[in-house]
């Protein structure tokens, strides 16, 4: 599989031209072209013309109001699909010349196709609330972002974290209980990371001390957390919900001035404290993971623990600390399900979001900002399904719900380029 990319190790003096070039990968351009053509045929050419699609952009308390935009649905879809096909052509040209295209191309391409889809799906229906769509997307992406960041931390240090789901659920549980006991949502926000960190402790004890396969530990810890939280929910929490499991919603904090910018303001700055913490955590991780001594050591341990050990880094101690930290990050994300969403705790309420977070981490190539973008993508498709359900859509909801998983499979199968996990992940370090 990797024969084409390996080069002879003992040929540093050979002229560069002698090195055989790797074969051109046409996979991505072909995929863009196919998706663009599908968009053109199904959203622009096949539907009957003459219908209008309306996008609503403003909310009530912005600085100024933007009028809802109304376009001809087939016309807009045609325009957007052709733009998407032009991008596909650009991608072909870049692939032929062996140029690298930036990360902007898939993003812009995706936005174009999504809008083509929206103008088809909203044809002749009620206006599509674009601000609400984006705001909800960001909101739904919160647990995915925290979960994916937890995965980034753990896997970069060499521990596979399948237990993200369990960490989210533990965080959701403890956040709800503590918030309910203290009648303070913020206390719940403090408690959530502790629960996640505890799951992280179990994960790291079994992987570092007992060398148990990390995927096994992760899978089993997920079951354990489901069992413990469901059991406590069915006994203690349901016996006296008034004390243990009252709804304690986290208030929405509007950032003055910024929140009144049309479109951007409500989406980014009319959220709960958890979302603002998320911005900070993503930024901090992105900087410190790649620009600090801590980050360098962490990555060294995940890529080549022996080399790290040789220069005096304590491999297992680093793994223990950062896996627990990762657990805490995921636990904080768990607070989304209860205090941030304003719900009481329910059995298995994370509903597989931890696994989606795992996928987001891989799509984001083990990179905090990449994970953020991928998580937003999942949040968007999740929310799109809800919004289109309200507006009314020609597609069955189950198919819509399936889409992010199909996209993930395409992504891990190498459509977005080969992803490479940290080299030493999953391998216990034995001196």
């Amino acid at each position, binding site marked *: 599989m990797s024969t084409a990319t390996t080069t002879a190790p003992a040929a540093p003096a050979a002229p560069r031209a002698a090195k055989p070039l790797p074969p051109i990968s046409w996979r991505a351009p072909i995929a863009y072209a196919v998706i663009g053509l599908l968009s053109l045929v199904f959203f622009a050419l096949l539907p009957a013309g003459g219908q209008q699609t309306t996008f609503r952009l403003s909310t009530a308390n912005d600085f100024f109001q933007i009028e809802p935009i109304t376009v001809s649905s087939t016309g807009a879809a045609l325009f957007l699909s052709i733009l998407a096909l032009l991008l596909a052509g650009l991608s072909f040209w870049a692939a032929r010349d062996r140029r690298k295209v930036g990360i902007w191309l898939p993003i812009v391409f995706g936005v174009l196709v999504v809008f083509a889809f929206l103008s088809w799906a909203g044809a002749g229906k009620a206006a599509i609330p674009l601000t609400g769509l984006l705001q909800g997307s960001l909101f739904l992406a919160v647990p995915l972002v925290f979960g994916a960041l937890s995965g980034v931390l753990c896997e970069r240090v060499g521990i596979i974290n399948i237990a993200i789901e369990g960490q989210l659920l533990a965080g959701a549980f403890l956040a709800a209980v503590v918030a309910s006991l203290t009648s303070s949502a913020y206390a719940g926000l403090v408690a959530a990371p502790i629960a996640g960190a505890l799951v992280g402790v179990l994960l790291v004890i079994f992987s570092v001390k007992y*060398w*148990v*396969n990390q995927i096994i530990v992760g899978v*089993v810890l997920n079951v354990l957390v489901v*069992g413990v939280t469901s*059991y406590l929910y069915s006994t203690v929490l349901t016996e006296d919900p008034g004390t243990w499991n009252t709804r304690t919603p986290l208030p929405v904090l509007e950032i003055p001035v910024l929140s009144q910018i049309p479109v951007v303001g409500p989406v980014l700055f009319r959220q709960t404290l958890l979302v603002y913490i998320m911005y900070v955590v993503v930024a901090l991780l992105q900087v410190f993971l790649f620009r600090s001594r801590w980050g360098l050591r962490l990555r060294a341990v995940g890529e080549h623990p022996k080399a790290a050990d040789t220069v005096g880094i304590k491999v297992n101690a680093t793994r223990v600390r950062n896996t627990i930290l990762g657990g805490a990050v995921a636990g904080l994300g768990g607070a989304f399900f209860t205090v941030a969403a304003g719900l009481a705790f329910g059995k298995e309420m994370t509903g597989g979001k931890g696994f989606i977070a795992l*996928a987001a981490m891989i799509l984001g190539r083990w990179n905090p900002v990449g994970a953020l973008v991928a998580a937003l993508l999942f949040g968007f498709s999740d929310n799109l399904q809800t919004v289109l359900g309200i507006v009314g859509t020609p597609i069955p909801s*189950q*198919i819509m719900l399936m889409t992010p998983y199909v996209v993930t*499979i395409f992504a891990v199968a190498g459509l977005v380029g080969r992803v490479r996990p940290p080299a030493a992940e999953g391998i216990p370090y034995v001196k």
Partner: protein
Amino acid sequence: MTQQAMPDDAGTPVVPPTAAPPSHTEQATEPPAGQTILRQMLESSWLVSLLAIVAALVLGGVLIAAADPEVQQAATYLFARPSDFFEAVWSAVFGAYSALFQGAVVNFSAPDLQRALRPLTETMTVSTPLILAGLGLGIGFRAGLFNIGAQGQIILGGIFAGFIGFTFSLPPGLHLLLAVLGAALGGAIWASIAGVLKARTGAHEVIVTIMLNNIAVYLVAYLLTTTAFQRPGSSNPISPPIPGSATFPLVLGQGFRLHLGFLLALLAAVGVWWLMERSTLGFRFRAVGENPHAARTAGISVAWVTVWVMAIAGALAGLGGAAQVLGTEKVLTAGVAASFGFDAITVALLGRSRPLGTVLAGLLFGALRAGGFAMQARTGTPIDIVLVVQSLIVLFIAAPPLVRAIFRLPTPGGPTRAERHAARRRARATSSTTPTTQEAGA
């Protein structure tokens, strides 16, 4: 990761505890025979498995006691009358576990023998899909593939079995055979997606199978809204009932739910044993699992093995779906797989990926599940405690050193107590200040 796909002592062949002599008996000072046998028993992985179950049940008991209102009541005056507290703990834990046992094995309070043994047949019924899916996952684990997708493969098996079952009308035996084969095919196709992607592009099977699980859940939910699958005249997501010609015959008559699917599971276990231990194909699977690089050097196509392993694992999980749809439920619903696919992972791990172990582990988890319902009905202890016990069992099983440390068992291959004492004496004689190497090795 592929080399480390199993807990560290899972690779030891399953042998009776007295068969294989441990290495230290080769030493000159032969300990008495009785002591050797005792020591071999203490070192056996079966004992560790048993103690892991005990430890998990004890921890589960702690949770049962902690959530019991009477225990909480008695704990408020623990120091005034500790006996009350311990009585409350005992009655809560014993009550729950005895209800679990009676719901899973033998019901002592039943009026006749038939009803007394009914719980045991329920256990066998519930364990059928667990065994079938667990066998498939076990093959994957031994070939170094971590297939989490049994859930989706069971669902696909259920979809195929159900569709063949309620759409066509065929003669009895043939109809059942076709439906069962269809289920195996459905599971195999679904699993092969992950296998092909892994073989061709290197996509990690854990992620792909997790995604395929979710897709399968929505796929069956969607199909049950279409005219081809939905029961005519019903607005619920439920298929038409499976006709008698396509259902598994009952083994013990109308009084019991136990159907031929259980025997199919046992047959499958024998088949998997033959495949893995006696066939060339199984040898290749194991070779790839042990060391893919060495296997490739030896001329085995790793990609080909990956696809085959996934297909066979998927076929077995698909049979598990058939057992549900054609045997236990006799209808296709969105909840066809319940949580069998995830439980099957723990079953395969507990069974150390061996057919016999998987059957026993499947029966144990089937018993926990069947008994869990009885326990919930009788003592009000939620069935969720079963999940806790199951996961703790697997955690303990996966970490034998932990169990050995809890129960202070000797380490296999390590020095016996007499040898340790001798070593210590020698160390003292040579006035060495550092601890003995043997102790560090233990």
